[in-house]
């Protein structure tokens, strides 16, 4: 039985303004095993965030079911943590308290939660910044804090909605490698949304390409570039390899086609 099972999920938003209903998701089927790294890619508005919100429990699907370990999801829960693009840290807490925030919510006492938090702070290389104010950190560091926080509650699934979108190119590449390292070490089920084809190919074990209007999964690819990176440690070589480039071009073509179809601008 799959860890996360999305069956025939549809999501219809009521009319925004005067226009008709928006079919953000339609007939989504997806079975994800523990330890998979699923990456969702697709033109803007194709329903990626909606799908993530359904998994996270923030939105109830109009149709279909989502089950986690066999049990239906009916709201957010500590078994699924979310890493957001931005704004999700708490500026009134320092790095340590931000990371330990989830445990505080769950009623752990201070020594217990700091012990766990410190473990993930170390894992993400934030040791020197434990006492820093989060708003003083660079964007890349902030994202690391966000990831550390999401990991503390030891969720079964880590959901990430364009977590690296706001970072500059270099910081982004490093963050990609860091996330892969963590995935490798923890073996968690990861679900990541990105706009970057390269990032998607590099990170996922499975790539789902989505198309808009109605939002659906148009292509699925099985990937192994991340394994290759983890084996060699040379991200650049992976990203420059001909099969990587070839697949990248193929997927870009798919997306461009989608995009022209919807007259997106």
């Amino acid at each position, binding site marked *: 039985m799959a860890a996360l099972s999305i069956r025939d999920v549809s999501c219809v*938003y*009521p009319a925004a303004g005067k226009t008709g209903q928006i079919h*953000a998701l339609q007939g989504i089927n997806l079975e994800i095993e523990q330890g998979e790294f699923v990456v969702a890619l697709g033109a803007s508005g194709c329903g990626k965030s909606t799908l993530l919100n*359904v998994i996270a429990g*923030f939105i109830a699907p109009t149709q279909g079911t989502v089950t*986690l370990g066999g049990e239906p999801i*009916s*709201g957010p829960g500590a*078994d699924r943590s979310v890493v957001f693009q931005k704004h999700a840290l708490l500026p009134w807490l320092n790095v340590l308290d931000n990371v330990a925030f989830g445990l505080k919510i*769950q009623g752990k006492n201070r020594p217990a939660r700091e012990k766990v938090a410190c473990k993930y702070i170390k894992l993400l290389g934030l040791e020197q910044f434990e006492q820093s104010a989060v708003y003083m950190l660079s964007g890349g560091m902030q994202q690391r804090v966000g990831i550390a926080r999401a990991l503390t509650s030891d969720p079964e699934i880590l959901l990430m909605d364009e977590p690296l979108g706001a970072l500059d190119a270099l910081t982004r590449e490093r963050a990609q490698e860091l996330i892969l390292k963590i995935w490798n070490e923890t073996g968690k089920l990861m679900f990541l949304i990105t706009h970057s084809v390269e990032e998607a190919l590099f990170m996922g074990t499975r790539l789902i390409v989505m198309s808009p209007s109605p939002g659906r999964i148009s292509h699925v690819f099985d990937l192994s570039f991340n394994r290759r990176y983890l084996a060699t440690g040379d991200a650049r070589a992976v990203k420059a390899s001909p099969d990587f480039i070839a697949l990248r071009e193929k997927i870009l073509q798919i997306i461009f086609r989608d995009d022209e179809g919807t007259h997106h601008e």
Partner: protein
Amino acid sequence: MNSTTRSKSPSALLILRRARAAKPGQIYGVPGQGDSVLISFLVIIGLIFFWWLFTTLGLIKPLFLPSPQAIVEKFLHIAADGFTGSSLLVHVRISIFRVFSAFFLACVIGIPLGLWMGMSPIARGIFDPPIEFYRPIPPLAYLPLMIIWFGIGEESKILLIFLSVFAPVALGARSGVKSAAIEQIHAAYSFGATRWQVTSQIILPSAMPEIITAMRIGIGFGWTTLVAAEMVAATEGLGYMVLSAAQFLQTSTVIVGIIIIAAIAYTFDFMMRFVERKVVPWKGRT
């Protein structure tokens, strides 16, 4: 079993307190989601009903709170016969005239001055001390000085209102200067713009949202100060009406006056919002 009970510390209370996943189109957990118009409407109806009930049953003396009917009657009566020899229209007109002329003057002087202060450290150096000094002082406290200096005629009344409007308008215009993005300014300069062109075509329009907000705040202040201005030696005006009716324990007239003042203040504010939407439709959208 659902996801809630799967979380680490399940409890019956927790489940009750936790919301379920939102329906599509709603965002989960947004605080205060939901419409309150109906409740407000019911509350207003309810308040008026209890007001009516208690006053009509005689549980509250009209001296303290006249009945809604009495207020309406009093309003109709004042509207028909006026108050202390002047018609209601005259009272309303003179009050609006005072507030508006003070507001107009404050804008005509305050906006350019504020912009100038924003643009020039010299202007800022000169006008900052006096404005910052008088700004926190309650108008009522310097009302006596206004009367000693400018007498009990219209001048001192309008000046008092003017001063209370002037500071927020000038300071709003001043800080509005900072609204122009440096990229916008650079863009203009790289087309060969002069300082004057940059001021009139970039800085002024950029400052408009803040200036209009300041004008809204200013007119509110002006309206608040009106009553103080009409406290001494007025013979007409809504503030005068309220205060002098109070001297005769005419609670119903006081309440009619208050309602008219509130209504006009709303109308002012509504107009300013309208102006805002028309003049700076881009506000908050860039």
